[in-house]
């Protein structure tokens, strides 16, 4: 049987490892989406555009600083900050006036931003493909169980859990995180005890945007940076957030794992339509647990 032979070949393990590094990116982006959805109740369609801007901004920073290790690491920090600034402008300039509106209107507003940002990226960076080479430090591969795994993928595998722990600490161990969770449940009450809810919302949106930008910057060396890279990602992010459970950080991690792994293994089993497997997994999850795997934390 062809399928079975593919599935149990030596390539499977390396495919799993590749899938895991993809999971990292999905997790970083979807945790940002989940955060914004959980606190602000906005299904942010522009999240994918922020991710794309992150990738393009990383490219620009590297053009500016050179492709060495310093330039690369600087890009990984500066690009998300640029995206966070864009998020700040969007939140303060538009969303902060419109939280009372229906969710449908907010979703369409984020879609209009996705359209506008998409064209702005086209104007600023042009329609050509861009690419970033991994600095010498990350080139080559490590041997894991006798299989080569690129250092950069390994780097991503380390970054992912770090981000997860960092987010968990921010949300559960800082005052800001606690207030944000409270504001998600009852913003009016939080306002009544004298806390400026607007700025909590702004903080959440900026943090979510930062994560989108970080995801874009981190994936930049692995893909062609191009217009439209936001389009498929945003749908995957939606699904991850849905199966993970609203606003649940661990849910986003679990959802990303399911999505990343079924995708990479699916491609192994059936190259042309491997893309369908994550969707089937999602449908299976939702048939069993319509509200997502983990309960929402707030």
């Amino acid at each position, binding site marked *: 049987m062809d399928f079975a032979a593919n599935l149990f070949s030596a390539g499977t393990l390396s495919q799993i490892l590749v899938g895991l590094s993809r999971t990292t990116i999905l997790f970083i982006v979807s945790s940002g989406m989940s955060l914004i959805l959980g606190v602000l109740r906005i299904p942010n369609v522009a999240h994918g555009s922020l991710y794309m801007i992150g990738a393009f901004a990383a490219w620009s920073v590297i053009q500016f600083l050179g492709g060495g290790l310093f330039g690369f690491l600087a890009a990984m920090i500066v690009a998300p900050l640029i995206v966070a600034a864009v998020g700040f402008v969007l939140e303060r300039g538009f969303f902060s006036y419109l939280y009372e509106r229906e969710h449908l209107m907010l979703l369409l507003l984020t879609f209009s931003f*996705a359209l506008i940002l998409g064209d702005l990226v086209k104007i600023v960076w042009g329609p050509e493909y861009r690419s970033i080479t991994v600095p010498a430090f990350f080139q080559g591969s490590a041997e894991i169980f006798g299989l080569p795994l690129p250092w950069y993928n390994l780097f991503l595998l380390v970054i992912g859990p770090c981000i997860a722990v960092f987010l968990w600490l921010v949300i559960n161990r800082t005052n800001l995180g606690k207030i944000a969770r409270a504001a998600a449940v009852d913003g009016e009450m939080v306002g009544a005890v004298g806390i400026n809810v607007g700025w909590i919302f702004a903080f959440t949106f900026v943090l979510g945007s930062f994560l989108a930008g970080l995801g874009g910057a981190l994936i930049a060396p692995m893909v062609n940076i191009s217009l439209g890279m936001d389009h498929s990602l945003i749908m995957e992010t939606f699904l991850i957030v849905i199966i993970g459970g609203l606003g649940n950080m661990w849910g986003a991690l679990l959802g990303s794992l399911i999505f990343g792994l079924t995708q990479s293994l699916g491609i192994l089993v059936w190259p042309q339509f491997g893309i369908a497997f994550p969707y089937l997994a999602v449908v299976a999850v939702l048939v069993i647990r319509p509200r997502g795997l983990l309960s929402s934390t707030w």
Partner: protein
Amino acid sequence: MNRSAAPLLLLLLLAALLALPHVLPRFHTYIAAIVLLTALLATSLNLAIGYTGLYQFGHAVFYGVGAYGTALMLTRSGMPAPVAFLVGPLAAAALSLAMGLICIRLSKLYFGMLQISLGSLVWAVVYRWYSFTGGDDGIHGIPLPDAIASPKGSYYFTLSVTALCLFAMYRIVRSPFGKVIQGIRDNPVRAAAIGVDVRLHQLASLVIAGFFGGVAGSLFVVVESSVFPDMMFWTFSLEVLIMCLLGGMYTFFGPLVGASAIVLLRVFASVHTRYWGLILGTILTLVIIFLPDGVLGVFSRRPLKEDSDA
């Protein structure tokens, strides 16, 4: 709108539309046909979102499946054309039912998010399945029956089918069934309490919306004699939603107005600029901030709605 004036206005509009291909050049007739079928598409979406209150975010998928169903039947099966024109919409309705069964259990916003992302799977499959759907090239040069192959023939066919479908949908929203789905939109809990099977009515409404969306897709095949995967891409789904919003979601004829405006604007814009997204995004932002009830919604009373609809 003044009630006694409305039928007269419609008759005038119909007369103008009938005379149109004899007055305007060929390209304008083609645009008019696209406007008509897009208006049908937007109105069918409005059945689900405006009248039933379901966040149908992936409507373009049914449009695309309707078009592909018809196109594949016309090119690959030896069946007569009328069968092909029935298969497309029925396939769209069947998909609508299947997706509805999966999505309906989720609450409002999640329903929409799941639907749009499952819809993107349909797009991805069509996009990659070269041997069957033609992949990202789509299918071109679809053979049409002689009667509707000419520009005028396809225009009149589109006009009559659109008019028929709009009339059918108008009757549906005015029927007892239509009243029930509007009741569900306004208050699903209360509707359930008086013995309405909420899920069943929602599903029925989704299937009807999917069917008419599929009809619009079949008409696209007639007008364009080609199909391509981007007509079911998720951004187009939201664009159709914008048409509904722009025209007024809680009115029957609003989506017609919105669809005409967006299609004409797009044709106009494509001549002058490459940045359609920038234009549409700006318009949408302005509409959301200043005209949340849409153009026609300004003239009609908005139905009572619940405050929270998460």
